[in-house]
């Protein structure tokens, strides 16, 4: 059967599901589910077809929902819970990451307050990863503009025991033993300044899905590349119109290609240069702008979870905007078309490639 793509679009007022046809040319929009709750992130698990939604709501508190029937029905999971005796309570889920194919029942969640939670039963229940929570440097973590959350969970392509997490504002932590121990992983190379401790405001950290050790990282004011075997982050920001932004994606097969959406650091929109996706094909040494079909000069905004790619060939790339658009490219960013508009503020886009 031909593969299709379904977009899970989180917004500030519920989850929308855009189901694409075989040619990725037309999209049927369903939703909203869970409105008026904000869906900070939603993810598809290709291992068993589950869908997860981070439902962040004041009424009844935040929760994680799971669907086992492709988004037709949803079930509330057992809430992540912070340890008794502390002053922290689970406030929001920032990111949900299905585990490695070698660990079929494992799903990860990053939360606010910043913590990593692990599920070993396909997302039915969640337990805090105490080894990360016990890091002495946690005392130095501080909230960014949007709060203090753990939002990036980068699992190595071949070894599920190797992973990194990104925290805003707390930097990167790395484990190579499945989360038993962690080390800070913030050493950079070539950057104009160094902030080697927890002071990196990570915006998005990605692991390549096929190449072990390959990473791409969007930081508050920098972009970094890391090749397999390297232990530092290579400064890769030159050539972008600004050094600020959130959204990032990696090409799922090409080992040298990644994408970002730069924003003005003060306005937090793509102004004055206009919304555009910037692509590197040489590991961040140079960047080219991809904007064919995008509105010229539009001061739009795409946030942390706002861009994602499918796994088809040619790759499809998708991003959502604060003004409720979803834009799609089925030719790896060369040209764009709007596949949804007038949605609420889009907080996340996840492209599910479905067999």
């Amino acid at each position, binding site marked *: 059967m031909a593969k299709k793509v379904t977009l899970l679009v989180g917004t500030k007022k519920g989850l929308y599901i855009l189901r694409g046809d075989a040619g990725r040319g037309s999209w049927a929009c369903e939703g909203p589910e869970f409105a008026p709750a904000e869906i900070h992130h939603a993810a598809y698990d290709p291992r068993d077809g589950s869908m997860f939604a981070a439902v962040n*709501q*004041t*009424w*009844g*508190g935040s*929760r994680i929902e799971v669907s086992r029937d492709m988004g037709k029905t949803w079930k*509330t999971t*057992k*809430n992540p*819970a*912070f340890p*008794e005796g502390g002053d922290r*309570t*689970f406030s929001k889920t920032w990111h949900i990451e299905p585990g490695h194919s070698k660990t079929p029942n494992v799903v990860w969640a990053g939360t606010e307050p910043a913590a990593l939670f692990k599920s070993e039963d396909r997302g039915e229940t969640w337990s805090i990863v105490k080894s990360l929570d016990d890091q002495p440097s946690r005392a130095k973590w501080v909230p960014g503009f949007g709060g203090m959350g753990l939002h990036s969970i980068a699992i190595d392509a071949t070894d599920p025991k190797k992973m990194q997490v990104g925290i805003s504002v707390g930097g990167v932590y790395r484990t190579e033993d499945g989360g038993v121990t962690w080390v800070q992983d913030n050493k950079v190379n070539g950057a104009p300044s160094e902030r080697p401790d927890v002071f990196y405001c990570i915006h998005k950290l990605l692991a390549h899905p096929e190449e072990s050790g390959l990473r791409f990282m969007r930081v508050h004011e920098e972009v970094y590349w890391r090749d397999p075997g390297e232990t530092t982050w290579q400064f890769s920001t030159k050539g972008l119109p600004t050094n600020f932004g959130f959204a990032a994606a990696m090409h799922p097969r090409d080992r040298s290609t990644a994408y970002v959406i730069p924003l003005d650091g003060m306005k937090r929109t793509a102004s004055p240069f206009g919304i555009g996706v910037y692509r590197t094909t040489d590991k961040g040494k140079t960047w080219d702008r991809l904007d064919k079909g995008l509105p010229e000069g539009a001061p739009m905004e795409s946030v942390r979870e706002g861009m994602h790619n499918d796994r088809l060939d040619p790759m499809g790339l998708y991003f959502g905007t604060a003004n409720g658009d979803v834009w799609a490219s089925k030719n790896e960013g060369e040209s764009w078309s709007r596949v949804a508009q007038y949605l609420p503020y889009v907080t996340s886009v996840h492209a599910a490639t479905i067999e």
Partner: protein
Amino acid sequence: MLLHGAYRGFAGGARDVTLDAATIGEALEGLVRAHPSLAERLRDEHGKLRPHLALFINQDDARLLGWEDAPLHDGDIVHVIPAVSGG
């Protein structure tokens, strides 16, 4: 107990529960026994009632009557309401 708004959805669409309870706290325990899905919607992981939850005994705000210790009497209706806030 009469559920309003989002709390009906959290209880699978249930509208009301009739139970014996001497206080609001006991009534909430009975409500959760009847609808376990409400447990984490009413309280956080440390057992504290969530913000943005309003409880009224008939027409009176339970916060002014002792909150979880507020006494109940035969025939009282406890309203479980998603509190509106902001401006």
